[in-house]
């Protein structure tokens, strides 16, 4: 028998709020979190817009009761905040013997700290302890330790689809019977490394990002973290915990076209969506809302759009990209948008795609621009990344 994957908790921190409730409030009020960058002193500060969390590292550290010697990068602090909220929401008791897994997604790990102290490490001893967290996994290990998780812990980096693949692996671990509960998601903080990296690719917009618009100029980077608690339905029932939603289907496919660009017809995107629908055993017409990847780069939106039109023919359901709210949070994007998808199911509301004015010439796709209340049973969420990594997730409503 198929193991049903229940979602029993979620947590988030993004440019539009420090927790689930705040994020929901911003979505409902169409209040975006895009601004000029304040926390990082970068030469690009007047050229780009970002989805920045307006809290300094010191404030995050204080909220988490961490000391400066605790080795936490900004990314890991964001992780800890969102993961703690998810654990609380799921009413999990993390005692030392709990066999809860933790699958994290991150692209930068401790990069924000390494770039900051890059030349100081040799002369000064005081910041050297941060060297321990220069790789992604050490950050995850540290988060796990603070959460009291010591069993199956791992990290995925498939660029912008990292959290989607963390969710998929977590679900498969539950289906295999190896775990009953697993915390899955991703986190990335803004840092100079990523900002400058995307800048060299010339895909950063100097305006607020406008997905699926003919005159889109590129993406705004964002930062954030979001986690879900996945649990077998049986485990949730056994402890009388009502699921907040279910994960019905998922798939991962590779575009295998180019290191950074996607194929003209969006082959990887098409395959991922198609396979996810197949696993959920539903037809395209039963999808009520699509939370698109929609980064607002020229390449992504046209190819994702073509893949949508191919799969849904001329009946593409209501869709939008929520990146105009949060910016593109990279490794966290899929889990941030998983939270938004679950909120759509809970509130029976479709979230608007902001900043849209003109349809892409080659496509017949117009994103929803208002908060629209309607019956929503199933949501499809897309996340695609460099290296051709494409993943799609399907969430369904908990009744």
């Amino acid at each position, binding site marked *: 028998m198929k193991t049903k994957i229940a979602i029993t908790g979620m947590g988030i921190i993004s440019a539009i709020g420090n927790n689930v409730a705040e994020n929901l409030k911003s979505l409902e009020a169409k209040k975006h979190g895009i601004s000029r960058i304040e926390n990082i002193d970068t030469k690009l500060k007047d050229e780009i817009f970002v989805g920045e969390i307006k809290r300094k590292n010191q404030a995050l550290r204080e909220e988490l009761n961490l000391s400066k010697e605790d080795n936490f990068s900004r990314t890991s602090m964001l992780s800890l905040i969102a993961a703690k909220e998810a654990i609380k929401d799921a009413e999990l008791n993390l005692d030392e013997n709990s066999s809860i897994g933790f699958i994290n997604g991150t692209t930068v790990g401790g990069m924000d700290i390494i770039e900051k102290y890059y030349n100081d490490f040799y002369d000064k001893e005081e910041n050297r302890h941060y060297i321990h967290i220069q790789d992604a996994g050490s950050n995850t290990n540290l988060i796990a330790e603070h959460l009291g998780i010591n069993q199956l812990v791992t990290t995925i980096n498939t660029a912008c689809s990292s959290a989607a693949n963390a969710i998929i692996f977590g679900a498969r671990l539950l289906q295999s019977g190896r775990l009953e509960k697993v915390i899955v998601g991703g986190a990335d903080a803004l840092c100079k490394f990523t900002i400058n990296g995307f800048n*060299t*690719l*010339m895909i950063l917009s100097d305006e607020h990002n406008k997905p699926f618009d003919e005159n889109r100029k590129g993406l705004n980077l964002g930062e954030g973290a979001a986690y879900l608690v996945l649990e077998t339905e049986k485990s949730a029932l056994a402890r009388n915990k009502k699921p907040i939603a279910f994960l019905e289907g998922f798939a991962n496919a590779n575009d295998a076209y*180019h*290191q*950074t*660009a996607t194929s003209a017809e969006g082959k990887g995107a098409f395959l991922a969506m198609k396979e996810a629908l197949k696993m959920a055993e539903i037809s395209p017409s039963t999808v009520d809302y699509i939370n698109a990847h929609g980064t607002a780069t020229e390449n992504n939106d046209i190819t994702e759009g073509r893949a949508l039109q191919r799969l849904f023919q001329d009946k593409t359901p209501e869709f939008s990209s929520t990146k105009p709210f949060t910016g593109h949070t990279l490794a966290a994007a899929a889990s941030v948008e998983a939270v938004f998808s679950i909120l759509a199911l809970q509130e029976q509301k479709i979230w608007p795609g902001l900043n849209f004015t003109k349809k892409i010439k080659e496509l017949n796709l117009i994103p929803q621009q208002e908060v629209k209340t309607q019956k929503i049973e199933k949501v499809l969420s897309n996340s695609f990344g460099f290296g051709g990594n494409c993943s799609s997730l399907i969430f369904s409503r908990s009744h």
Partner: protein
Amino acid sequence: MENLKKELKEKIIEALNLEDLTPEDIKDDELLFGEGLELDSIDALELIIILDKDYGIKLDDPKKGKKIFESIETMANYINENRSK
């Protein structure tokens, strides 16, 4: 102009790590993209850096590079007309 072309060839070989090539292997009118040298979109971004760093020319839209980077000839002409260093 001839010096600029030779200089450009050397810079391109270095920036794009075309270690099997010498400047003599690249003809002035040879296509850089598509056929000829078979460069791709990532190379185009590298060429934009060369324009900026060595000749003080800023391209804000990579699409503009298409005509400029057609060949060494077109690139040298564009640099000649627009350089600020």
